[in-house]
């Protein structure tokens, strides 16, 4: 553990730590463009120069490792380093176009930030700026390239070389003729291409999807968990609810990965990143009942009463075998716990499952994306919603429904038609007196349901997901549910109350507390303990439950 001094502050760091990382721990900023903790060190930008005692020349903070007794002065304390860094910044900006008004990076741009912090000089450039060939051209399906804005830090090149190993991007030519481009006319097409936009410190690589949608300073952000697969990448939801004329009133403008060493580091996949439109598009906004062919909107109160009446009659006349519930691993632990409590524990219904036959087209990739495209499969399992162990009972529930043996079928956020096809589900819906669909978006299953209830989507929810490795992660609501939608747990509480059971919870945390007290897998876990980086359930526990 070498002990070093940075700006008169002492710190001990592990061997192999570079000066930028060591300074960061002390809260000291060493400006840099090319260094990224997730990539190899390039030493290309020369912005991280620091003065080190007994070294004749300035050293780069990215490639210089801390060694015992090192005394370092950053630009805050060293006039020599400051002058050098200012000079580097001036050179970097020599050919940079004054594009800020039209550049999507403006507001979160490394050049703007460092110029305001460390630059603030008047331009001494007399010659015309060197113009590059490609202005605003697509590099692939998701990324836009502007060669003029590029400062050749090579982060994107290293990303495609080291992380995706697809090697699409390269730097061509030398000196001030250098430019970045795709190799041999290829296209930047891999499932992680959106990350190069995040790591580009300037506006050279921007998001085609986000292009001109919203200025970044209009965005608010909220921590969440990607619901796209069982990895549960930590994300930030960037949304705009104050200026509704922007982007057609869409609330979510983009998703960004949030650092979590144990889950997704700095990255997320494109499939998850660009899945956000479902938060605002094609949503179920009000409860509705199907009369003949059309759906008629109805009141929440009427919808809950109708469900309660049907459930009561079915249970009284035909017993608990006449009700089937298909839960969903898209729901949070809190929602699933209430489903189990209400339907299994209180009403004694056995036909409750959340599993669908595996989708064979969905595959693991070798990085973040997993074949199980649900965020909370393990959570549903640990809560105890797999009553028959490994055997999936969903087909049996649907068979019973098609055979006319069910009075009520309650489906949560699962598009049955997408799995089983239109005809069998339509046939089944015709044989069940009441098929309830509670979900976020319209789909072919909701069209067939007799009663449709609008549920809040993950961006509107407070709750937890348990990822495939048993890490319980907290997602926070970015904004209120759309229109009349309600979080699933609230709908379940209302239904339970209408059935005469006292389900009262102040909030999601209260449900989780009860869950933690009743399910041994979740014992000892609290929202505070989960924090922003999750709580790993011990592997032995996860395994013992999976094999049980």
């Amino acid at each position: 553990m070498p002990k070093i001094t940075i700006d008169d502050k002492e710190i001990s760091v592990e061997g192999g730590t570079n000066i930028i990382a060591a300074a960061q721990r002390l809260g000291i900023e060493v400006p840099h463009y090319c260094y990224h903790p997730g990539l190899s060190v390039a030493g290309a930008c020369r912005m991280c120069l620091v003065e080190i005692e007994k070294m004749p020349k300035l050293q780069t903070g990215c490639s210089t490792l801390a060694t015992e007794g090192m005394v370092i002065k950053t630009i805050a304390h060293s006039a020599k380093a400051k002058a050098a860094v200012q000079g580097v910044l001036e050179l970097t900006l020599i050919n940079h176009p004054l594009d800020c008004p039209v550049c999507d990076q403006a507001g979160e741009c490394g050049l703007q930030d460092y110029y305001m912090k460390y630059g603030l000089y008047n331009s001494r450039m007399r010659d015309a700026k060197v113009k590059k060939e490609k202005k605003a051209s697509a590099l692939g399906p998701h990324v836009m390239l502007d060669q003029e804005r590029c400062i050749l830090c090579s982060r994107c090149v290293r990303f495609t070389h080291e992380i995706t190993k697809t090697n699409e991007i390269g730097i061509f030519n030398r000196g001030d003729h250098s430019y970045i481009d795709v190799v041999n006319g290829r296209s930047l097409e891999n499932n992680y291409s959106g990350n190069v936009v995040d790591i580009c410190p300037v506006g050279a690589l921007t998001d085609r999807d986000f292009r001109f949608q919203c200025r970044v300073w209009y965005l608010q952000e909220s921590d969440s968990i990607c619901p796209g697969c069982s990895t549960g990448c930590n994300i930030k939801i960037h949304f705009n609810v104050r200026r509704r004329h922007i982007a057609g009133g869409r609330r979510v403008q983009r998703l960004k990965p949030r650092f979590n060493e144990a889950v997704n580091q700095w990255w997320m996949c494109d499939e998850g990143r660009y899945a956000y439109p479902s938060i605002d598009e094609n949503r179920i906004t009000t409860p509705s009942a199907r009369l003949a062919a059309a759906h008629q909107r109805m009141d929440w109160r009427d919808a809950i009463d109708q469900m309660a009446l049907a459930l009561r009659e079915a249970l009284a006349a035909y017993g608990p075998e006449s009700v089937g519930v298909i839960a969903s691993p898209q729901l949070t632990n809190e929602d699933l716990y209430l489903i189990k409590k209400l339907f299994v524990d209180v009403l004694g219904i056995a036909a409750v499952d959340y599993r669908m036959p595996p989708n064979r087209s969905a595959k693991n990739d070798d990085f973040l994306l997993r074949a199980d495209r649900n965020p909370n499969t393990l959570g549903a399992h640990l809560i105890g919603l797999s009553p028959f162990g490994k055997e999936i009972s969903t087909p049996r529930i649907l068979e019973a429904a098609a055979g006319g043996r069910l009075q009520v079928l309650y489906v949560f956020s699962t598009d049955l038609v997408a799995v089983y096809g239109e005809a069998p589900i339509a046939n089944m819906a015709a044989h069940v007196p009441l098929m309830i669909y509670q979900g976020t978006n319209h789909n072919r299953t909701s069209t067939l349901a007799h009663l449709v209830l609008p549920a809040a989507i993950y961006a509107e929810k407070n709750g937890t997901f348990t990822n495939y490795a048993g890490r319980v992660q907290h997602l926070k609501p970015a904004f209120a549910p759309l229109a009349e939608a309600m979080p699933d747990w609230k709908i379940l509480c209302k239904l339970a109350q209408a059935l005469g059971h006292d389900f009262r919870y102040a909030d999601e945390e209260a449900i989780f507390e009860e869950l933690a007290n009743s399910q041994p897998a979740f014992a000892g876990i609290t929202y505070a303990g989960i924090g922003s980086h999750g709580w790993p359930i011990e592997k032995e526990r996860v395994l013992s439950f999976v094999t049980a």
Partner: protein
Amino acid sequence: MRRNHQIPLGAIVKGLALTAGHFFRNMRIHVAHLFGRRLQEKGMVTFQYPEERRPFSPRLRTRHRLTMRADGSPRCVACMMCETICPANCIYITAGEHPDPHIEKQPLKFDIDLGVCVFCGFCVEVCPEDAIRMDTGILEFAAYSRQEMILTMDKLLMKEGAQEPDRALMKENA
């Protein structure tokens, strides 16, 4: 109880004399004007609006306009500086792609709600492209509905034969 101030009798008399002086002087001039006399003497200023208009100061902020490029398209690049700085939140811009990659960005919609605008002029100050100005000299934009108070891009580009600012009048007054 001691009176701690006296009635300022002198000042009252002085003030009344001034007011009365103006009153009688103007009455004499305006009555004379009625009979076509003493026309070279100017009485108290009353503009017979709207036939007669008061000259504007050249720095007066009047209704906005968007300036144009040579081809008649707006100079605006939809950077949203004006929308951002606007303290009344009365500017609504939707941005889109410009066919020329060297311009890149243009407004698809540019609406100003004059019913909300406070005429502070920040939008003009902040514009990096000199794309918005408040020099039209138009002050009469009252309307019968709130919707009509919203200026769309076409109106802002003054394409609809909007009133041109009276530069001569502005200069004369400067």
